């Protein structure tokens, strides 16, 4: 197969530039293969994250021609051969080096999310009964591989940098996984409203579009959570008072 040009972001902290690498490519290659080949042959200190190379671990997130994607699941043959493929790090997080960003904020958010609390066991042996139709709703959200591409594309984080006030679509999905868990008894409505910043989401569905697991983040996770929060915090008496006072 022919040579192709890859335009990679190289840099650290606040500085960096796009650097072109020309590379011999084989049939079936994905973007991550190209990055590895550049590492092995031309730039041994090129930083990138990866693990499974099969779309299961969510480590190799980056922006390919400006679109948030997993490098391991993006085939070179999807792009015109005569034009460079541009690979840049996720924009919503601080840069560490090259294609690697500091995603530690996500782990802090996860730590603060109210944890799973099951109802008491249904049987003296400590077990529960749950049916497939009950678990399926939560299973959709539990497919999340924590690639953080939805966080990257979300304008509340990416453009408005509301990291202190908004937990982002990834953790709204996680919250939905708990809230739809048939055994869970914990209450996250107040948390989602006050610390989670769920109101910031104006359902543009960008997150759903980039999810490599095809989770219907906006429709199935965020909108039902918004409804739950409104139900909980809507006080009819106060609404009438507000209406009368203008």
């Amino acid at each position: 197969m022919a040579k192709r040009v890859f335009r990679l972001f190289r840099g650290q902290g606040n500085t960096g530039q796009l650097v072109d690498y020309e590379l011999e490519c084989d049939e079936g290659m994905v973007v991550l293969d190209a990055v590895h080949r550049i590492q092995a042959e031309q730039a041994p200190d090129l930083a990138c994250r990866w693990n499974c190379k099969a779309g299961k671990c969510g480590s190799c997130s980056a922006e390919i021609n400006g679109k948030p994607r997993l490098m391991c699941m993006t085939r070179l043959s999807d792009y015109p051969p005569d034009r460079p493929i541009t690979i840049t790090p996720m924009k919503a997080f601080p840069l560490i080096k090259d294609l690697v960003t500091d995603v530690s904020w996500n782990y802090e958010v996860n730590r603060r999310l109210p944890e799973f609390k099951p109802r008491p066991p249904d049987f003296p042996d400590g077990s529960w009964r749950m049916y497939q139709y009950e678990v399926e709703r939560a299973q959709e959200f539990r497919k999340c591989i924590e690639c953080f591409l939805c966080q990257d594309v979300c304008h509340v984080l990416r453009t408005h940098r509301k990291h202190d006030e908004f937990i982002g679509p990834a953790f709204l999905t996680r919250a939905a996984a708990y809230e739809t868990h048939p055994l869970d008894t914990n209450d996250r409505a107040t948390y989602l409203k006050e610390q989670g910043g769920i109101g910031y989401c104006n359902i543009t569905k960008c997150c759903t579009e980039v999810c490599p697991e095809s989770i219907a983040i906006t429709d199935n996770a965020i909108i039902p959570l918004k409804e739950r929060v409104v139900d909980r915090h809507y006080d009819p008496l106060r609404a009438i008072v507000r209406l009368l006072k203008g």
Partner: protein
Amino acid sequence: MIEVQRHEHDVIVIGAGGAGLRAAIEASLQGCRVALICKSLLGKAHTVMAEGGAAAALGNVFPEDNWKVHFRDTMRGGKMHNNWRMAMIHAQEAPDRIRELEAWGALFDRTADGRINQRPFGGHTYSRLAHVGDRTGLEMIRVLQDKAVHCGVDVFMECTVIKLAVVDGKVCGALGYWRESGRFVLFRAHAVVLATGGIGKAWAITSNSWEYTGDGHALAYDAGAELIDMEFVQFHPTGMVWPPSVRGILVTEGVRGEGGVLLNNQGRRFMFDYMPEMYRGDFAETEEEADAWVTGDRKKNRRPPELLTRDVVSKAIVAEVKAGRGSPHGGVFLDIASKRDPEYIKKKLPSMYHQFKELAGVDITKEPMEVGPTVHYVMGGVKVDPETQAATVPGLFAAGEVAGGMHGANRLGGNSLSDLLVFGRRAGLGAAEYAKRQGRLPEIPQNLVNETVEWALAPFERSGGENPYQVQEDLRRTMQENCGIVRDQAGLEQALADLAKLKERAMRTGITGSREYNPGWHTCLDLHSQLTVAEMVVRSCMERKESRGAHTRFDYPDSDPNWERKEVVVRRDGDRMEVKVVPQPEIPEELMTIIKEGA
């Protein structure tokens, strides 16, 4: 003086896959201050890629299943080479560990009456694997990850450990570097649990990621611990073979568990031709019987031969390809499209559907997959006490893939995820109890730290030296060619000679750039572990002059009764690798009866 960040804990756990997380949780529940150190981000360890499920005799699908049947299956699958006590503990405790995971939030697929569903898998008499579609590992690691975080475990991500500190004959700490900054960090603790997984990255075709460089095996070896069974490396029968860039990526055994069949280029279900004597009578003898079993009548019919153990299926595939009956790209065909309808396949094997569609342009609901063997798992590892997972050096513990003994000469699919939980917990408990008996934390002499740091930084002094990626690739090539699925003396000798040269080249590797997030530098350091484990494997293979389970030799094609219940032990003796053969503990009579006559 070199600046080194310092931390103090009671117990440190190296590796944050299933075993490491479970060990950290247990030590923390025992009241210990626990550090969990991992090379990647949390939740990205190999466990996340596990697909098929976790084996446990819950008896939800087949009430007649119990620990004895599971024990028997494990021992027979391991060719009777397993540590019997570990296999027993594993079979007895796995159901509790699965139920515990459910109490912590895991959502397994359900039976019609609302219990945890169980799927059939190779070598298991009954449907036994608790699962979530084909992403069981993801479910397990998330649940354990959240549990660990809420238990108060201190997590140190993207930190690679390069040396264990041994003071007065006891392991009492670990020295590592932050991948991000390239700075060094010293963890002091009473006990260290190794949960670093496997070694597969030393072969060219593998389902393993960059992390699987055998760090834990090498750390234990350097610290003077004994390792066993290193000749037993599992080749999973079904890895992807095409296109070249995805070669080796795993295709779950769940495809066969759900009815997928293996075909050669003449369309024959060749597994009927490879029935080992040991399993004769346990498996279907006609396609009709196998198909009837798949479509639901599991009481009257026997399992399809595609569900034979992994060593048997891998060797059968190699034989078919060698006989000229392989697929266009040097594998065989795995077909589920003609056995199940598209909706069923997408529901039960969603990530396989996705993986083939995206990476190979193959729709598995319409056409067969091309598959072939891929290095997947190492049965060998650190020799441990079955009750506490203590290694042969005080203060050191090991659990999961890095520990040896549990799986004998061949691991059954599904027994790894349950192994992680059962022995992860026991290692955490063992380490916590050991830590509580210790007094003050010993001081770690500065020269121990300095020597290691100097060694680690040496590649920066050698810019213009050997390319570490090239050395790694050459290592993977020689192991693939000379220490692959079938071995012989000449090949092994060639491998050993190559390793000696590669070691010299590894000493000359050079790197440019800074210490910050520099994968080239990381590869220089990984080479030490990889070359150490490769040598252990090659020497152990040379020692065992017979074929058993996953260890197959051209020049000694049969199992030799003289080698029965004997294990190859590797240990460091100064700069020399000492290899010896010792008898395994005798299997108690009542357990032999279970194995021979059934439970």
